[in-house]
């Protein structure tokens, strides 16, 4: 049976300063299907969804809904046209009841004049929940519901609203719906989705490829802002899909492979059976001097939480950490800092810098003790330290008194690096070293990373792309679902291909 198109993108294009998020491609979504949308971070999935929900306007091409071009001013308008999105964090207000959340802003359907008929609202809520096969008491406070239940309330709300606005085939977008769910709940979710798809379109965005393959009718792969391909479920294969998602040419010399040094045998950090309850299973590994160790894994693999433990912003529930052979305890960032472990965060504007303050303040913030003379901070020493490290990391700025908020992403990253180098950090945890940095600056960062290794520093990195991880590291740890599943060596002359790694990741 020929399926009708519900949404069509023609040559859809979206550009941001410095990056083309959507390169101009075509994509069709049909009625009564579950569409799985896959792609790495930065592939363009969320940009596309934001256009669908009216948060962004395209810079080129067309967005057609039921055959007509549409322009939405915001998510409310999109909902009124039958397109709604359920986010990972959820938009449910925890202090309101299920009923109140379901019908927020639509109370007039149940009111006479100023007064709302609570009983009518509750009855309608009960009906809507039952229709979706949910056993939730409409008078419960949403703060008391589990994440799974909250998600179901959101889905119910969107479907109810579509019916209210009389839309035949609502489009429901689910962004990473299963990340917070237990296995049983995942099963329930997909049962419900299968029921919903009889009169709606569901767009599933998830990094969990097995789930997508199992539950989607059709799978579309995006990469680097472009449409790669699509396939029906029967033809879908995990390896094939991952390859399509990440396959890129490895350019010779890229990532400054020729500058890669061999690690020395000295163990600077050892992790033994480190675990975080329900997030990370006991993991052990070592880090050597001059070594760059990459942590690779999908979202939910536990790698982010692992490095947070090493940096002190999260606490492990079991296991131990050894620094230069001695056991240490890291319960807060200042402990990590005391052991010369530095953390360069993924979001440098929010977690790495004080954007109101100037470059000097940011570079010097860890080392004021060293900049004192006769008991007080010495301005001369401050300036010297700041300009020295600015020179080392090559920050392009007119003076050390420039406010960090005014620097480019690349320069901000360098200031953060300078801060940790000034503090003589020996181990650096680098969370997405080149996120949000343009191509030219990226190369400089790679150069810095190579230099640091040469000078005896050790690094644990997590990169934006698998290629970057492979290219930069000496050795790679692969994590999946909270466990270490493989360890791969990446010497400069024999870098593994991404396809080899993918097997372990998925």
């Amino acid at each position, binding site marked *: 049976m020929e399926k009708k198109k519900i949404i069509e993108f023609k040559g859809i294009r979206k550009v941001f300063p410095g990056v083309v998020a959507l390169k101009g491609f075509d994509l069709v979504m049909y009625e009564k299907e579950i569409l799985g949308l896959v792609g790495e971070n930065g592939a363009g999935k969320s940009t596309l969804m934001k256009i669908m929900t009216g948060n962004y306007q395209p810079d080129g091409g067309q967005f057609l809904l039921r055959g007509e071009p549409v322009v939405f001013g915001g998510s409310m308008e999109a909902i009124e046209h039958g397109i709604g999105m359920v986010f990972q964090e959820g*938009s449910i207000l925890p202090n309101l009841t299920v009923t*109140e959340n379901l019908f927020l802003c639509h109370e007039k359907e149940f009111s006479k004049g100023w007064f709302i008929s609570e009983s009518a609202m509750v009855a309608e809520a009960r009906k809507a929940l039952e229709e979706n096969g949910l056993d939730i008491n409409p008078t419960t406070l949403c703060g008391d519901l589990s994440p799974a239940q909250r998600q179901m309330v959101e889905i119910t709300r969107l479907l109810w609203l579509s019916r209210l606005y009389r839309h035949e085939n609502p489009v429901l977008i689910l962004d990473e719906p299963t990340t917070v769910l237990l296995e049983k709940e995942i099963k329930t979710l997909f049962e419900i989705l299968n029921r919903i798809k009889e009169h709606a379109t569901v767009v599933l965005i998830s990094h969990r490829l097995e789930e997508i393959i199992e539950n989607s009718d059709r799978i579309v792969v995006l990469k680097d802002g472009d449409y790669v391909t699509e396939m029906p479920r029967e033809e879908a294969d995990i390896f094939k899909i991952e390859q399509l998602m990440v396959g890129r040419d490895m350019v010779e010399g890229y990532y400054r492979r020729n500058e890669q040094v061999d690690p020395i045998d000295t163990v600077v950090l050892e992790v033994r059976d480190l675990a975080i309850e329900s997030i990370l299973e006991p993991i052990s590994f070592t880090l050597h001097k001059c070594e760059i160790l990459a942590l690779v894994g999908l979202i939910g693999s536990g790698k982010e939480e692992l490095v947070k433990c090493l940096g002190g912003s999260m606490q492990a529930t079991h296991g131990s950490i050894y620094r230069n052979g001695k056991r240490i305890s890291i319960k807060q960032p200042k402990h990590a800092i005391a052991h010369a472990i530095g953390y360069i965060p993924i979001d440098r504007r929010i977690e790495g810098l004080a954007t109101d303050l100037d470059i000097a303040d940011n570079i010097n913030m860890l080392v004021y003790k060293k900049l004192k003379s006769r008991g007080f901070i010495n301005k001369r020493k401050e300036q010297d330290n700041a300009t020295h490290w600015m020179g080392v990391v090559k920050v392009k700025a007119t003076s050390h008194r420039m406010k960090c908020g005014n620097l480019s992403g690349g320069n901000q990253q360098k200031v953060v690096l300078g801060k940790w180098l000034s503090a003589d950090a020996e181990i650096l945890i680098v969370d997405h070293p080149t996120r949000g940095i343009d191509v030219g600056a990226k190369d400089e960062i790679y150069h810095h990373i190579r230099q640091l290794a040469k000078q005896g520093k050790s690094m644990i990195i997590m990169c934006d792309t698998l290629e970057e991880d492979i290219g930069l590291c000496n050795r790679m740890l692969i994590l999946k679902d909270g466990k270490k599943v493989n360890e791969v060596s990446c010497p400069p002359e024999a870098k593994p291909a991404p396809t080899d790694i993918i097997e372990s990741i998925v």
Partner: protein
Amino acid sequence: MKTKNSRSLENLSTLRSKVSASAVGKLYHSIPISGQIISLGIVALIFSLGTNGQFLHVSNIMTVLGLSAIPMILCLAVHQVIILGAMDLSLEGIVAITAVSAGLLLKNSVTGNDVGLWIIPIVMLIGGLAGLVNGLLNTKLRMPSFISTLGMSWTLFGVAIMISKGSSIPLRDLRFQKVIISEFLGIPTVFILAILLGLVLYIMQNKTKLGKHMYAIGGNEILAKQAGVKVDRIKISIFGLTGMIYGLAGLLLVARLNSSAARYGNNLLFPAMTAVAVGGVSLSGGVGGALNAVIGTIIVVALNNGLVLMQINPYMQSAVNGIVLISAVALTIDRNKIGIIK
């Protein structure tokens, strides 16, 4: 962030969930202000023991209810702004200016005015306008409410003194005082008025769109806005409503004392905030309601009454109230919501 304290907090919460699950626990949870009722009971117990039963004499209870009326009205006013997640420190200033206006517009010994019952809508208008300004400063000029309302309080207080030339104005229209002093079936009329106001607000909070949206904003302003709640409009309305109620309180103060002065606004903020916190309205917003405001006020007034009866040094009252305020907030603040406490 696991520390020694969070571990003991964990044990506490396990204990809590065990108790919650039991039958007693279920009963406790089904009554909205059960915690506060128990606190009131404890206060009553302590003070009746301390005063040999005098505390619980009918006449004293009536006194407490009568004393609680005006603070209750103020608490009912300000707690709604707190449910929104904002703050309103302009209470004293708005009461000052409405009190002084009432003093000058009602029949008095200084001017020739005699507006009589029209004063009721007039004070509500004046208070409401001041409240609207608060709302506008917060929504349109995007100023943090606690400093903008603080500034408004100072401004309005100054204006009140200027208008009244710093002195008190005796009232000649005695009707109002008669009503204030009167009783209805043995219960002070003012208290009944306060309870009626509480009832009106209770209905508004639970049965109208304004109420539901107010709670949505308090729960999470960004999400509420995304869902289509007209945040600015609601905030301005609530600030305005709060101002109107302050105006009513100002009028009642004038009526009770049969004169008006700008200083009548003084020392009203602290007890109102304490009542809000003790009643269980969370400073983070989105939690609590008229019931909490009512019982919170009764507890605070009863507490102070008990202190007086037990002849505890009157100057200790500020200290006791200070400790109660801090403790009440410590217990009710939702630490998960406020990532950063300033």
